[in-house]
């Protein structure tokens, strides 16, 4: 989207705006969510360095939680590898989608730099990019993403560190309300996505996964994602024909 006042902004201003967007709410919620992961990790037998390196290297909450629970059950390395990759498979789609939104190709970055920046991609930054897309022209979205994702990454790691030592400071009554913030925040963020097909996908995918889970376990995520996404695309393309509308 272009032709807005933001056309006059330069990348460093956009990076700063993104940082402030992150500081408005999402970074604190993520900080507490990661502190929640630290608590689970500590209970599962992780030491401090392992907990921090898991957050730094995996940087995807469902995979981290799957890892911690398998670790506490003394699962094999192969089981850990497959469970974490299944839980974090969405990264693959999110990276493609984010690269498309940011027109990553046009920035001509070498492969290692593209992989480096995508290491900071997690669901909060990705969903926010969808919102930023409605405000900023696409050539500035890489700068937006850098400012936003780095800010929440720092807060997430801070949360991991603090959570390992301070998990007893917040009473559970408060902690459970704060941990509730991140999933709701991201669901609401996705429901404000510009494309109708994406909003429909959120509804179908979200409705299907709890029903699939009793039958197929963790595979429910993959199944609900593929079926929900395909149905939404199919409906949008062949029945509602949303792509023929000018305004999404």
């Amino acid at each position, binding site marked *: 989207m272009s032709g807005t006042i933001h056309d006059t902004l330069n990348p460093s201003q956009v990076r700063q705006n993104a940082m402030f967007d992150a500081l408005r709410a999402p970074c604190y919620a993520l900080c507490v969510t990661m502190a929640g992961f630290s608590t689970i990790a500590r209970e599962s037998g992780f030491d401090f360095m392992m907990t921090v390196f898991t957050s730094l290297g995996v940087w995807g909450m469902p*995979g981290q939680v799957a890892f911690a629970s398998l670790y506490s059950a003394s699962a094999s390395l192969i089981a850990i590898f497959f469970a974490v990759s299944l839980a974090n498979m*969405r990264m693959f789609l999110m990276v493609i989608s984010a690269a498309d939104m940011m027109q990553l190709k046009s920035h001509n970055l070498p492969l290692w730099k593209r992989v480096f920046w995508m290491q900071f991609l997690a669901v909060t930054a990705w969903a926010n990019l969808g919102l930023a897309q409605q405000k900023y022209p696409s050539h500035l979205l890489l700068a937006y993403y850098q400012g936003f994702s780095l800010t929440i990454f720092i807060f997430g790691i801070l949360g991991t560190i603090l959570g390992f030592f301070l998990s007893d400071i917040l009473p559970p009554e408060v902690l459970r309300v704060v941990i509730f913030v991140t999933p709701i925040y991201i669901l609401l963020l996705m429901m404000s996505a510009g494309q109708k097909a994406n909003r429909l996908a959120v509804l179908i995918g979200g409705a299907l996964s709890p029903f699939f889970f009793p039958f197929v376990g963790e595979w429910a*995520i993959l199944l609900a994602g*593929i079926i929900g996404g395909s149905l939404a695309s199919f409906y949008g393309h062949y029945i509602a024909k949303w792509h023929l509308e000018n305004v999404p």
Partner: protein
Amino acid sequence: MNDYGFFYSWLAVFFAILATVIWRFIGVVMASRIPADGPVMVWVNTMAYAMVSAVLLLILVRPIGVLATTSLDHRLIGLFAGLLVMFFSKRLIFSLFCGVCAFAIAIHII
């Protein structure tokens, strides 16, 4: 509690990291091969949205850790309150606030 040694524990961390980095890497490589405005990109996007939503709903319906001390009713009240306010007000942070407040109030009342 587990019975891994020092070396095996760090190997487990390495495998967990590898299991995620692989997807990011494949994503970066694939991204430059899919045409930006084509139907495949629309499909990839809708699947990403559906899959993230699927993960979040599983977290809400079958949570672990401290969130599991609340009941499903509480969490659903919070979710639907947030969605309802979002539907009418279109204001993200305000809707988030309402959803979380509804959740907190539900825990204490119901």
